[in-house]
Structure formats: C-alpha cells, structure tokens
C-alpha cells in the first residue's frame, strides 16, 4: 500500500492536483459516457456494402472469405475448404449454440470434436461475436462456448460470422460487447483478429504463419 500511495502522491504533486472536484467529475463523466472520437467514414455504409467492405479488407489482410446463403450451408462450406486444401476431415469447435445448431451430421465424413484444443488439432471452427468492416477484423469473445486456444493453436482457423453482425467501425463492435456483458464488464479475452498470424522479424520479409494459425478462413452467413 505504501508504494501505491508513494506513486500516486508523486503523480498528484507533479500535476499540482489538489482536491479539485472538477477533475473527478470530468474523469467520471468520461468513464461513464465513453465519448466516441473520430470515426472513419469508410465503414459507414448500408448493410450490403458494409459486408462487401469487410470481405475485401479481410482478404487484403490475407484471410480467405467464403459467403453462404444461410447457416445450414456452413458445414458443407467447411468440408469444401478442407477438401480443397487436402486436409483431414476433422475439426474442433467450442459448444457455441449457433455452431451446434448447424447440420454437421449431413457431412458424413466430417468428424467434429468439441472443447478447447491441446495443440493437436489441425483445424478449428469458431463463431465471431461481431466483425469490423473498416479493417476486415473479426471479434471473438472467450467463454464456455468459445475456447480461446481454438483461435491460436490450430494451423487453420475457420471463423463463421453472421452478415448482420458486421459493424462498420471498431467502436460499434466494442459497443456490442459492452451491451452484451454490461457497462465496464468484459469476458476474460476479447480477440480482435485481422488475417492469419505473420512475422517480419527476419530481414523485414513478411511471412504468414508465425505462432498462430497459418491460414484464416472466414465464412460469412447471409447478407
């Protein structure tokens, strides 16, 4: 406690901050109201163009994108992805209700396993909570149904997102998280993911597939 008081005391002294109630009010107001700043015009579009922008920005970040008409088409799209890349017909996913309600049984060759991964799974499937059109970013939240390890350990990460969940900008997506968990509350982990992992650490040569997934595949449902 002493160290805490010493640091805060030094900060207050340096700022010449007395017991000015105005400061506290300003800080409180900012924390409560969370004013938005400059929002790029780029993402402020109607639904169709917003989803199109999301897809093109995600591709620009080296993700691949597939669009399907509705959620019943997702399992077939996953199977098609695995076949096209010569991957074993096996995926791991969390118990996300939206994923679970999809007709996986129709893909008779596809083996679906549930729960977090120990690193032995080649392909994982997650459902994004929302996405951000301005930068082609997916937003995933941790929880019982969405193990965070699925976002990082498998070589291929397939993420399903509803077109209706695609936000134009980062602030709108964060506001959705706030609405879902409550003001000032957060799940353990919020992952904003823009493309597959990469490194430029050797001679500034950009290479995909550093420690996270080598490939990020997005399936956009509807829209």
């Amino acid at each position: 406690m002493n160290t805490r008081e010493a640091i805060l005391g030094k900060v207050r002294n340096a700022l010449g901050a007395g017991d000015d109630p105005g400061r506290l009010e300003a800080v409180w107001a900012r924390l409560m109201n969370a004013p938005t700043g400059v929002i790029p015009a780029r993402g402020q579009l109607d639904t169709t163009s917003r989803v199109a922008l999301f897809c093109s920005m995600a591709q620009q970040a080296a993700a691949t994108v597939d669009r399907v008409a509705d959620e019943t088409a997702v399992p077939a799209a996953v199977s098609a992805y695995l076949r096209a890349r010569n991957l074993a017909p096996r995926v791991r996913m969390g118990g996300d209700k939206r994923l679970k309600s999809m007709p996986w049984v129709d893909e008779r060759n596809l083996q679906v396993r549930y729960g977090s991964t120990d690193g032995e799974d080649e392909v994982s499937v997650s459902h994004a909570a929302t996405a951000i059109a301005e930068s082609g970013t997916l937003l995933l939240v941790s929880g019982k149904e969405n193990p965070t390890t699925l976002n990082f350990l498998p070589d291929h990460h397939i993420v399903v997102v509803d077109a209706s969940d695609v936000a134009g900008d980062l602030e709108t997506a964060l506001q959705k998280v706030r609405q879902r968990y409550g003001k000032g509350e957060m799940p353990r982990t919020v992952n904003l993911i823009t493309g597959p992992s990469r490194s430029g650490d050797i001679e500034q040569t950009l290479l995909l597939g550093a420690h996270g997934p080598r490939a990020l595949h997005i399936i956009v449902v509807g829209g």
Partner: protein
Amino acid sequence: MLVTSPAFKENAHEALSDEQLRKALGNVRAGFIDKRAKAAEALPEFEALRESARAIKDHTLANLDLYLTAYEEKVVAAGGKVHWAETAAEARGIILDICRMHDAKTVAKGKSMITEEIELNDFLEASGIHPVETDLGEYIIQLRGEHPSHIIAPAVHLNKEQVEEDFRRVHTDLPPDRDLSEPASLLGEARRVLRRKYFEADIGITGANFLVAETGSSIIVTNEGNGDLSQILPRVHIVVASIEKVVPTLEDAAQILRVLARSATGQEMSVYTTISTGPRRANDPDGPDEYHVILLDNGRSAMLGTEFQDMLRCIRCGACMNHCPVYHAVGGHAYGWVYPGPMGAVLTPALVGIDKAGHLPNASTFCGRCEAVCPMKIPLPGMMRHWREHEWERGLNPAVVRSGVRFWAWFARRPPLYRLATYLTMPLLAAFGGRKRRFRFLPFAGGWTKYRDLPAPQGRTFMQQWRDRDALKQGGAA
C-alpha cells in the same frame, strides 16, 4: 543492462564500419517508410485521428492519478491483482515472488520493452528461472545474448545468414543437413521449437500497449500470436506495464489503435489486438487461473509536470526511428540502452540521467521527420533541445565544446561585430578555398574534414543576402 550511452560516439563509429549492420539497416528504410505513408494516405481521417489520440493522452496524463485508481478498482473487481512498483528492482521482486509462489521453472514471454527496461531476463535467470522469449525477433536475440535494436523489430540489425548460424548452434537436436536458407524455413523451425515452450511454461509474462480504466483490461497488439499463447496456456498471466499506459475507455483505445498499427508497420490493424480482463471465468474452458498487473513508475512520475511530460504520450510504434537518418546510419545498439532512435534520445536521459545519456539528444540533425510522423505528435526535436539546455546548465559538455560555444556566443551577442567578423572572414576563406572551392583540411574543423571536404564560402554572407532580399522586396512593392 549496462548503460553504454556514454560511449555513443565509439558505438556509432563501430556501427558505421559494420558491413552486416549496414546491409540489415537497409531493410528499415525499405520495410517501414513506404508502408506507413501508404497506410496514412489510405485513411482520410488519419490526421484527425492523430489529433484525437494526442488529446486523449493529454487528458489522461492530466488526470493520471484518478485513472490509475479507477483502473485498479476494475482489475480487482474482475478477479485480478494489481501490484505497484516504484523502481525496476521492486518490479523484479514482485515478479519473482509470484514465480516462487507457483514454483515456476520456466516463463514464456511475449514481446515487451518494459521487461527489457527492468532487465527481467537476466534477473530471472540468476534466480534459477528460465525465461523464454517467444516473439521471433526476441527469440533470436535471446539466443545471441543481445538486446533489441528496435522497439518493434528487435532483430532488425541481423541478416538471415546470422539467424541460420544461431539456429544451427542452438537447435542441436535437429538434423544438421536441414535447409535453413530462407526466412520461411527459419520461421518454421522457430514455430516448432517454441510450440513446446508455451505448454511447458508455468507463467506467461506480457507487456501492455494499453490499460483500460473503464474495464480494468490490458491490451496487447501483435502479429505473431505468441503474446496470446504466452497468456492463455500458462496458469498465471503477469502483465508488466508502466503507469502512462492507461487510457480512459475502450473508445479511447480504439482511437489510438487506428494510428498505432498504421504508424508502426503500415497495417490497417495488427493481426491480433487482444483485450484481457482478469483470470479465466468459472465456466471458461481455457485461460490463466491468475492475472497480475505490475504498475511500474520507474521515473515516469518525475516527467509529469515538466517539459518532458509530452513524451509520456508515446505509444512505442517505432515510426520516429524508422524515419530517423541517424538511426538509419548507426542502428539501435549504438544508443546504448533500451530505447533507441529519437524517442530514446528523449526518454533515455529522463530514465537514466542526462549525465550518462547526453550524447543521445545531441545525435540529431533536427531534420524533424520524427515529429512529422509521430502519431502522438510528440515534439521530439524540441525536447532534445531541452535536454541540450539541461546538459549545458549542468556543465556536462566537454570543455572544448563549452569554450567554443562561449566564443561564438560572445560574437552572437554583439551583432555589428558578428557581421563585421563574418564580412571579413568570408572572402579570406573563399580565397584559401582555391580553385576547387573546398577545404580538405581546416583548423578547428577536423571532425568534419576527416570524412569529407568542407565547401568554402562563396559570395556574400547570409546577413548581406538577407538585406538585399528585403531591399528587393520593398522595391518590388513600391
């Protein structure tokens, strides 16, 4: 780490004759400048966002005590623990205590400049705990026993042949005839080797790009995914962050994130922006059981309320060094401590003392590119000037510099005499310059003429030309 900033001149000389380094530094210019320019140009609101980001940090710094306590309250509410540390030694002690409590043998580390600042690796190693750097660049320099030469590209001073040599030296359990000639094969090998380490580690340590007061969250911004694996696989996640990392809300973090990635690597958004709040929740299938934050001061509070307060806006994007002609020439190690380039030239004297780091604010051409590209609009050249003043006031410059400046100042304070002296000297120098109109050697200018000729003055003095120009303008107006 030993502060070698007092030997900046020797360090720089050595760097200038290092062929490997010259080749590697070529990648800085090629790899960063164009990408940043394109990303900034592609976003019409970029300038407005810089202004917004600057204002957010200014507001936060002016109320830092209040935001820190608000942040602390939210961390605790989410089940995390906050530890305050005034000095590097205190921070190391707290980390060691946590490691001991969990009987930790190895620690997986995400990339973090603050843990470089507190020299955490050497300390843990000496305490019998093995730290593993998991960022590719950091891993490479850890193998070499070096320190980062750049705050976001720690191994930018190396070429792939050097990395290959290190991997062959250290990864002795792999077949000696394997092909490591391309960066891709080197990356693949590092990925395989480090995969095991995340699972073996008892504790994960990361830094933080932001701390969010509204939610008690820490945010890291990365491209490789190692920072995430380091915090979700081990049982304990320790965040080390300095006190100026706090921002009020998620919206405020969003504003700064937009300028961070673009300024650093020219990306619209880095691959992974991860917002972590507390330990795993009761129903979470994975994530750490414990979440600790170490809030470190280590000299920051002493910068508040001084002419160096603006430096605390720095978000460590590296744009200033990417655009610095001095950094391009000498690289990061020459600066002799943790933070290189223009931001290091301002921050290092504040954290280790101007008596040791006096060369750094002097190693600038004041070209102003650092300030022009700084996403947080930090007046870096202005602050380097402030440091030069401090250096002068404390009498730290060498005697020859002090007498030289005094001699010049004596004339400068007597304008007529100054003009007369230059008026008389100029034709003399022009005459001695000879047909080639330059000097290969000149008394008192040996530091210059050792490496290049000094052009001899031609024509008239600046003051004369200025008068002519004024006369011309007035004539034109009439």
